[in-house]
């Protein structure tokens, strides 16, 4: 239990630093802004209490906001993503529910499950984030384009991280 909390805190710090020190400086044009830090919300264990899920996501968002000078935008998107996580998990749950010892990673539940689970949550997060940034529905299609392209890039990074840190046990 303590081990899981410690691991999550380490992951939080690592992902924030990765996002603001490295990813933020990679310029792929105005339409592509990957946000790898959402991996933290994706990776929280299944049995995380819902209150902690929301609060930790809020903390993550507000920390990213400090570095991006976007007070509240990332926080709002993260809280929304955390709010929809239980529903998305329910949508993709296996017939007899999730087993006690598993974690929401590719290692335990397979590539197709993981990609559908994370792509929906990432799309929701980016959608909320980019529309709050615009604060209007003018330039609607260009914003939708940004949401889709950035989500694809975030998803690619998230999947790469899975192969990097959680190798499939034979």
């Amino acid at each position, binding site marked *: 239990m303590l081990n899981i909390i410690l691991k999550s805190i380490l992951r939080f710090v690592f992902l924030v*630093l990765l996002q*603001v*020190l490295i990813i*933020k*400086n990679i*310029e*792929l*044009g*105005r339409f*592509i*802004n990957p946000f790898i830090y959402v991996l933290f919300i994706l990776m929280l264990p299944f049995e995380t209490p*819902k*209150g902690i899920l*929301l*609060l930790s996501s*809020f903390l993550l*968002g*507000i920390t990213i*906001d*400090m*570095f*991006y*000078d976007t*007070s*509240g*935008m990332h*926080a*709002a998107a993260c*809280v*929304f993503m955390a*709010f929809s996580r*239980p529903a998305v998990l329910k949508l993709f749950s296996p017939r007899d529910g999730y087993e006690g010892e598993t974690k929401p990673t590719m290692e335990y539940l397979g590539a197709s499950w993981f990609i559908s689970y994370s792509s929906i949550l990432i799309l929701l997060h980016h959608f909320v984030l980019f529309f*709050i*940034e*615009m*604060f209007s529905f003018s*330039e609607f299609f260009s914003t939708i384009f940004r949401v889709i392209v950035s989500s694809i890039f975030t998803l690619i990074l998230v999947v790469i991280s899975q192969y990097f840190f959680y190798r499939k046990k034979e």
Partner: protein
Amino acid sequence: MRNLILFIWKYYFYFTFLLLEIFCFYLVINNNYYQRASFINSSNTVAANILRISKNIKDYFYLKEQNEILAKENAELRTHSFISFSKTVNDRFVVDDTVYRQKYTYTSCKVVNNSINRRNNFITLNKGYNHGIKHDMAVITSTGVVGIVKDVSSNFCTVMSLLHSKTVISSKIKANGFFGPLTWDGENSNYATLNDIPTHVHLTKGDTVVTSAYSLSFPENIMVGTVESFERKRDEFFYTVKIKLSTDFKKLSYVYVVNNIQKEEQKELEKKAESENP
């Protein structure tokens, strides 16, 4: 009462969600509509220091280029050493000592955080009110305009870059003096748009665009960019001019914050005139 508490307890997930979202939107709106210094921006100490260390490392990669720019700028400054003085010769009397009165002072700052790929971009600098930086000061670099100071903390300040939807800089065509507001449309960090240039003005590609004298913050004749193309939209009497910006926002490293010493005096006088003749 008991039922209410039980109800809230049962649906605490939804209530926490709503509460947090309301708080987030409060922050977003507060920051958008009031230019108030909030603690959730990169001028707070922890965030700014982490960004400063990372920027220190990155700066080594640009040393050569920065040296060239500095050398060029030194040469230019030697040729116009009176650039920051305004003339106060009066035809009734002339006192030798007050022929030139200083109007602008410059503070050199280092960029510790920068972005160009969002709709509203901000820059963080390593000086704050301890160094005399105040809200609304102009920020320029040797190659052209950069932006306007927004929030200031004791050792850092954030700058609303020219690449921000709410930044408007009064600019003019250097050749003929016609002026208009310069804004950024969010497409490309190398181009901005100049509006309100009357259609009878003769424009050519490559015309120089500089800041006009009507801005309280910017000195006159600071380079903005060159005319790339211009078009007249239907039913409009003005050109929309596409400007190629002279500042490369991707490579910002050292900038100058401009302090207009006579700003308060001018502001007060204008305010007085407005309040007397509403």
